[in-house]
């Protein structure tokens, strides 16, 4: 099922904001078409890691990193077209960021930026992405109202639809379910399982059970270090390699 070629390679990644080091030289690989879970308590550097991959970290003053991050073997710091890199990666933030546009325009935003002009094909993209994000039925009659008027959970699904709109090869979900009810969360999880055929998914989550349900492999990140990285069956078994992993997964600490 999972092809054994790395989609993303991270080597000796040290990341810091000013004097404060957040990631202490971590190395791992994410394979093509796998769902890669990242678990760990707050402040362990999960979000910073994602932001380094799509190079939005550079908008934060004082943020730097050393080491290497490659996407498809290409060093992200040296890509010729950073916009192309970012279009390759769909990003869903923990709290929904509905751009102040209509529902339709939110989803059509990236395709239009990418140069698609025909209304027909944009219509198709909007419908496909909204269906994939399990939002189509709720909004199909009011596509031209402001996206910011939707409820929190709907807005989050809108950002998922938007992240899918530029047909990314990598989908990063940063605690996507904290604003969504459990039923909708399950529906989106089903969608993610299907999407795995088409893309690589990085699932950062505070819900360890979500990682267990979805992820092929899971990485336990704690205070900027990788405690353990293994197949999810191992991480969530009764005998992971590290006692700390067992404790965290079973809610004994963290």
């Amino acid at each position, binding site marked *: 099922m999972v092809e054994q070629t790395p989609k993303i390679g991270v080597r000796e990644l040290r990341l810091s904001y000013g004097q404060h080091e957040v990631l202490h030289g971590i190395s791992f690989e994410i394979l093509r078409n796998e769902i890669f879970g990242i678990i760990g308590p707050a402040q362990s550097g999960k979000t910073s890691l994602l932001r380094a991959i799509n190079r939005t970290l550079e*908008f934060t003053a004082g943020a730097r990193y050393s080491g290497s991050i490659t996407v498809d073997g290409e060093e992200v710091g040296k890509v010729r077209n950073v916009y192309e890199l970012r279009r390759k*990666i769909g990003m869903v933030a923990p709290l929904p960021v509905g751009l102040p546009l209509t529902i339709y325009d939110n989803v059509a935003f990236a395709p239009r930026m990418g140069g698609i002009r025909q209304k027909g094909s944009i219509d198709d993209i909007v419908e496909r992405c909204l269906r994939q994000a399990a939002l189509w039925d709720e909004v199909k009659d009011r596509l031209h109202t402001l996206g910011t008027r939707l409820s929190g959970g709907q807005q989050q699904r809108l950002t998922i639809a938007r992240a899918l709109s*530029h047909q990314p090869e990598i989908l990063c979900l940063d605690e996507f379910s904290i604003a969504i009810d459990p039923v909708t969360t399950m529906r989106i999880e089903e969608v993610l399982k299907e999407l795995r055929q088409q893309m690589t998914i990085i699932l950062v989550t505070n819900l360890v059970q979500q990682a267990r349900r979805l992820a092929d492999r899971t990485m336990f990140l704690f205070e900027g270090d990788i405690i353990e990285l293994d197949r999810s069956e191992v991480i969530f078994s009764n005998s992971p390699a590290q006692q700390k992993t067992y404790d965290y997964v079973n809610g004994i600490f963290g």
Partner: protein
Amino acid sequence: MTPGRRHLEPLKEWLIERFIWLCGVSAIFFVFAIFIFVFREGADYFFSGFKAGEFFTSIEWYPTSRTHVRYGALALITGTFSVSFLAMFLAVPFGLGAAVFISEFCPPRLKEGLKIVIELLAAIPSVVWGFIGLTIMNSLIVRLFNAPIGLNMFNGAIILALMSVPIIVSIGEDALKAVPDSYREAAVALGCTRWQMIFRVLLPAARNGLLAAVMLGIGRAVGETMAVLMATGHSIRIPHGVLEPVRTLTATIAAELGEAPVHSDHYQVLFIIGILLFTITFVINITADFIVRGIGRK
């Protein structure tokens, strides 16, 4: 809080609420009071001898003629609108451009310096601007455009634009700063360039504040008196080009009110001009309000 004081809490709350209410209501009260006062000063003439037809269609403004007094304000209305329009034509793109630069592109250190300078610009008294128009701009326009006279619509518009730009920049920059960074990051994460982000996300998100900035700029341009009085040439005529002198409504009031005998027809007509100015700014603000809501409802 000691138990003894606790029973005073409702009273304190009540007092604070009343005070805040008073602050809010006084704004409405003052606007109406000014309107009523201005209207009362012109009311006698407005209801007896005032010829609205002549006022709005004639360019013959002879308030002190011995034989045939005429109050045709068309040239003054044209003057106000042409100078303000030209000023905004220059100031809006420039001001908004500067606001975007300061908010999005400027390195932090330069940003602080620029903001201080721009606030200084906004604080320059209008008579100083008028002085600049009267001397520097005057000779510059004569030399550059070979114009017969440097005190004209173009001069006034440039002075007005220079006065409005700082307001547009500082309010516009505040509006852009108020756009959450998450919007910028979301747009950028979708793979758009900085320009696309600015035009498609930032400007639409900040449009209410930006519109308010432009409206304040227009308000300043329409209401400005001293600088235009000094820079526009103050000559009553319908301009046929930007290099011709004009006279504005505000400048007319400023120049003539002191000379007009109190409660004479002339005096009252000047107050009617005041009402007209009041109405113009009112209409501009209402229009802006409708535009903002119109976009918001979408």
